[in-house]
């Protein structure tokens, strides 16, 4: 099954919904709405982990050696947004790129979990686009929040799918299209640290809770995106997340219209 969080236009209440095969959503009270008729929110709420350089080819692309220990950073709710929403490209920058990633949704409290048991703690999977503004990357300092935690630059969704509906999460194709053109393609089998390893690693020093999300990194194939672009990231068997790039001025206009 596919699970999502949505809002109806003009309403503040957040609904947990099931998603039908035609991407319409079903509210708990039975009402049904088409994909285009609702506001899609990030599908879960919790701590968001993101992996840097977790595909060897991507590490090579950035002229890095693949890490010997997972390179994990955190994201705040400030940066998250949903399916069919917009992402803001800052003015006066030269390079902002997408990153298609498989997201693991934690389903049970996890502490000191072994890699053999790790998948028992997974509720399901989602998709994210972990945009980065490379202009703001300062040399070798930590992937800073200015690069990776800007408002609107982490779309996630559209939904999460139950773990058991994904036959083999270690063999899924990831693809990114910009304006309909295929720009990035990879496979989760190329992860440096796989999902069981990541759960074992994180839970060895901190408690993971239901709703926590792990964005597992991106393969090679990065390219700049510009205002007006439609960016679609897809993980095979999980979902297809649509997003549009806007300029700061366009975003300010949109904000003004919704107030």
């Amino acid at each position, binding site marked *: 099954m596919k699970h999502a969080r949505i809002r109806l236009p003009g309403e503040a209440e957040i609904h947990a919904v099931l998603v039908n095969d035609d991407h319409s959503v079903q509210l708990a009270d039975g009402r049904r709405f088409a994909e285009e008729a609702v506001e899609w929110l990030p599908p879960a709420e919790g*701590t968001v982990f993101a992996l840097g350089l977790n595909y060897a080819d991507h590490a090579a692309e950035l002229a890095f050696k693949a890490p010997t220990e997972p*390179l994990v950073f*955190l994201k705040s709710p400030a940066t998250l947004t949903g399916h069919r929403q917009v992402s803001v490209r800052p003015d006066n920058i030269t390079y902002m790129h997408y990153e298609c990633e498989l997201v693991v949704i934690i389903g049970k409290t996890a502490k000191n979990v072994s890699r053999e048991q790790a998948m028992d703690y997974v509720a399901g999977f989602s998709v994210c686009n972990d945009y980065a503004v490379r202009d703001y990357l300062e*040399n070798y300092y930590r992937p800073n929040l200015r690069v990776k935690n800007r408002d609107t630059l982490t779309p996630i969704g559209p939904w999460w799918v139950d773990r058991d509906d994904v036959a083999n999460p270690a063999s899924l194709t990831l693809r990114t299209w910009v304006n309909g053109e295929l720009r990035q393609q990879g496979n989760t089998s190329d992860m440096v640290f796989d999902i069981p390893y990541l759960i074992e690693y994180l839970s060895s020093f*901190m408690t993971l*809770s239901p709703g926590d999300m792990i964005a597992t990194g991106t393969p090679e194939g990065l390219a700049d995106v510009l205002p007006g672009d439609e960016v679609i990231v897809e993980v095979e068997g999980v979902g297809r997340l649509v997003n549009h790039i806007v300029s700061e001025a366009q975003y300010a206009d949109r904000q003004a219209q919704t107030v």
Partner: protein
Amino acid sequence: MKQGRIVLNQQARRVTALADGKLLLDNGNPLADTPQWLAPASGTVYGVALNHRSLLEQLEADFQQPPYQKAPATPVLFIKPRNTHAGHGSTIALPTQAGKVFAGGALGVVIGKVASKVAVEQALEVVAGYTVANEISLEETSFYRPAVKAKCRDGFCPMGPWLVDAAAIDPLKVEIRSYLNGELAETNHSRDWLRSVPQLIAALSQFMTLQPGDVIIPATPLRQLEIRPGDTVAVEIDGIGRLENHLIAEESAQ
């Protein structure tokens, strides 16, 4: 006004301190028992690394070497996630096999209004109040990689007991005293911070929206206050309060 959050019958509740020290529950009833404290704010906690002069001075030579080549030009930020948040009086488990653990006595700046692209001059208007924080961390040997393993362990960000109204505190003039087993062990002063609280609010809100309940930890000094299982660590700021926590070994907590 001093406000705190406690757990009562498994629910989070607000309490207010009266002038005589008595506690009043959110329904107006007095609270007699010693409460189980929660962190006074429940939003995202943003820490600022390398904002204390002592730390930057010590690392100055390192920053001229590879891989850094130069000191950072913008605030280096990190997040203390929800599993790290803890209240006054909570017991915190320390790993004994992961190297040294250090206290990080700090101010907690609690945001009160949605804040996006706030100017330095208006920055303090978005502050609801202040609390006391202890940004506990393992030793940091590198600023080259994110410090999740060092900083994001369970209970590594106690805060409280109080959220004190913004008007009562001048964040440019705070002194933070840390005590180990009752003895003053470290003093940290806001005049030693490279960027002030208003400058940090302006810098952060420039690219991300701060929400009510979010907390900024403006600075922690050079790590020198080592804490061990069996110790009691306290952080105190005049006009805000005293945050005290007892430390045990992680192995005995399981």
